[in-house]
């Protein structure tokens, strides 16, 4: 097996075995399902404020998984070994990002279906919301790689990651909220696809450069 697939499988297995993948899903469902309780059952209020809240919750849930993404590899010496691999570090970082998306991003998008219904989103829009979140979490992860790599050497760097990364979460959130509220769904999905592909292509390159500096 090649370096990409062993890295992907190892990261996926680690996230499932450690229960790390369930925490962001639980956070996401908990946060979104509390909103109707906090805002009251008024349908019109929930309809307008609810769907964007799905996106905020998803962004925060992804953010919570980023802190340990590279920090663990730096601390236990795995990063040194990744630098000696046949595959370039960028490629291995992409493998880790894909594993994170499969373990966290995709389940988050699926969990958005019950969350959106609880927030009074029209049932015929739920499929578009799930699809938009699948793209949006990919964009979040691609962007988040860079923040995670820069702060890998910082203890309790979670807040720092949020400061670095949250401004760049704005484009996916803007267009994702457009999908959620039903305006120009097709165009917004196209822009989200662009965000996801761009972030997944450029994120690993920037993250690998930051990680090479961390390895010193």
């Amino acid at each position, binding site marked *: 097996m*090649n*370096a990409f697939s*062993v*890295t992907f499988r*190892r990261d996926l297995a680690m996230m499932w075995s450690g229960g790390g993948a369930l925490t962001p899903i639980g956070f996401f469902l908990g946060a979104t399902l509390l909103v109707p309780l906090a805002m009251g059952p008024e349908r019109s209020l929930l309809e307008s404020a609810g769907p964007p809240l799905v996106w905020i919750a998803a962004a925060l849930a992804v953010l919570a998984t980023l802190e340990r993404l590279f920090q663990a590899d730096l601390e236990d010496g*795995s990063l*040194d*070994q990744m630098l000696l691999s046949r595959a370039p570090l960028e490629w291995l970082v992409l493998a880790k990002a894909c594993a994170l998306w499969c373990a966290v991003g995709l389940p988050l998008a699926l969990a958005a279906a019950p969350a959106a219904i609880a927030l009074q989103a029209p049932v015929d829009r739920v499929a578009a919301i799930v699809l938009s979140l699948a793209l949006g979490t990919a964009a979040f992860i691609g962007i988040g790689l860079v923040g995670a790599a820069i702060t890998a050497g910082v203890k309790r760097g979670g807040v720092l990651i949020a400061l670095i990364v949250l401004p760049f979460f704005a484009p996916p959130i803007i267009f994702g909220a457009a999908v959620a509220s039903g305006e120009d769904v097709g165009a917004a999905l196209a822009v989200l696809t662009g965000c996801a592909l761009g972030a997944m292509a450029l994120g690993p390159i920037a993250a690998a450069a930051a990680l090479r500096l961390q*390895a*010193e």
Partner: protein
Amino acid sequence: MSGARPFQDNPALRVDGLAVARGGRVLFSGLSFAAGAGDYVELRGANGSGKTSLIRALAGFLPPRAGTIVFERIEEPALALHYVGHSNGLKSNASVASHARYWAGLFGGVGDAEGALVRVGLSGARDRLARTLSQGQARRLALSRLVIAPRPIWLLDEPAAALDAQGRETLGALVAAHRADGGIVVAAVHEPLGPEPSLALKVGA
């Protein structure tokens, strides 16, 4: 790993006027040595003298402040060397066997991950999680990388740390076999590793 020297193109390592700094402090400078096929370079020095930094500079992780490190007849140094440092590079929730499989994929090993575990004496622990291993067993697992993917240059930082007498014997045998194969071993040690070094180098002032 046996038979005629697998690393036939006679790899060589040449270090010229090397200076390495950590945190703005120059640890050593003007360090020069050369090693060829079958050589074992033993690095000695007090704590903080820069043995680890030298090894990390040789591995390409730490850019030297001055001087050159040349690998002769080796195209891509990062693919020609193994590094075993203070951190073993283990994931606590992964089993011994899954580490071996992962490294075989990561380094493009020839696939005898099983045999590597037997050689470092971990065949009975293959299903145990890394967090349940003792320090010595974790080090043995890290050393199995050397066997999983044959690479000509080994950079070892205190490889015998936490190893028992039998583990040190195994390590000595690995080093001897690697030298016989025409590989190069550079190790930072406090106690002699066993095999007679072809060059003993004192690092630091």
